[in-house]
């Protein structure tokens, strides 16, 4: 099982793999926002957590169609489906490697990028905590979307339409946790909801993704 994870990480790092693509997009977004809304630091620090969360969502979306599409095109997915590894496990590992390549670097870079948006320092901890709890759900929902659209030409746009509505609860609770944390209010409920969404996704979506893959490979 670990072989699939190792291979995906290796492919992500090698030329054309897309590692850092999400991070670069995140960085550019954060640099562009102050130009768009103006240099007023009050406004910036108020919208910073929301911008960072939306940025995390969009940069995660950027690499979703690669999760299964490349393996589908070169025939690897057919071979994986006939291998002893269950497709449920393959889907879980694909989601994990997607998170390691996009969600984890975003979580780690968010405090630095928060500085660019004049984010208040007390928000940093909550931003990292909410991203760490929420981004795994983004990768898992994205893997499900990718499994549904595998085999469709130019499925990328369709993935966005399928997956963005599913991202909404994560975004709401993630941004809410940071807002409450910044204002010194209790964040337990929002973080608990975020963790519950992630746990629910981890429990259910590998089966849904595997079923979608089986349908599409027929």
């Amino acid at each position, binding site marked *: 099982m670990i*072989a*699939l994870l190792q291979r995906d990480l290796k492919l992500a790092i090698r030329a054309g793999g897309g590692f850092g693509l999400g991070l670069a997009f995140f960085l550019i977004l954060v640099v562009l926002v102050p130009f768009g809304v103006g240099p007023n630091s009050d406004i910036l620090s108020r919208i910073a957590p929301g911008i960072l969360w939306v940025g995390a969502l969009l940069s995660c979306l950027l690499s979703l169609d690669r999760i299964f599409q490349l393996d589908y095109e*070169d025939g*690897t997915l057919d*071979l*994986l*489906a*006939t291998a*002893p590894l269950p497709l449920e496990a393959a889907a879980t590992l694909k989601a994990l490697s997607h998170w390691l390549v996009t969600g984890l670097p975003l979580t780690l870079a968010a405090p630095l990028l928060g500085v660019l948006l004049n984010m208040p320092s007390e928000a940093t901890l909550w931003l990292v905590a909410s991203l760490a709890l929420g981004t795994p759900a983004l990768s898992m929902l994205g893997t499900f979307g990718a499994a549904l659209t595998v085999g469709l*030409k130019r499925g990328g746009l369709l993935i966005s339409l399928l997956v963005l509505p599913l991202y909404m609860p994560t975004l709401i609770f993630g941004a809410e946790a940071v807002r409450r944390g910044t204002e010194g209010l209790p964040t337990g409920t929002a973080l608990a909801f975020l963790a519950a969404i992630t746990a629910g996704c981890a429990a259910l979506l590998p089966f849904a993704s595997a079923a979608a893959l089986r349908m599409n490979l027929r």
Partner: protein
Amino acid sequence: MNFSVENLACRRGDVTVLTGVTFSVAEGEALVLRAPNGAGKTTLLRCLAGLTPPVSGALHFSPEDVAYAAHADGLKAQLSVEENLQFWADIFGTRDIAPAVDAFELSSLLSRRAQDLSAGQKRRLSLSRMVLTGRAIWALDEPTVSLDVENVARFSSAVTRHLAQGGSAVLATHIDLGLPTARTLDLSPFRAISQDAPSDDPFLDGAFQ
């Protein structure tokens, strides 16, 4: 390994391509599928590999015993030959890639990236994966495409060795491999009559391609 299928009907997409396919293959025997293009060789092989569930009929074996080699090579261009093989060896739990390397004489190519291989070399690498699976039934779809005479001989000796060890094989091919225990099955009689009929819903036709 002995295996058989009985009265099998297979579909590709929404079209039932084959009906009433019945055959059995004995241990150490190879079944060569012969049929014109579009007759359903790939469809049958995908069905045997468990990728497409049959419309009706029975498979008297487990798809877990089938190693499938498709038209596509299934190689990762950015990985070396050795990494590609090691990945499949780990997935199938056989770990050791030496038998595959020996069978297709890949030792001089091991450190080369798959993207720098010729079409024939890619094919050899892809076929050598079969040796790593350790599975009893090989289902091979046009295995000799882009192989030269020497490598066709290498491939058929790999298949012969697999058969001698008690395995069996189903091959879709247009050339004579010179396998000692091969039997030919013509798929043409099993063609489903409706296969050229237009789809029921003209608006769905090709909408998702």
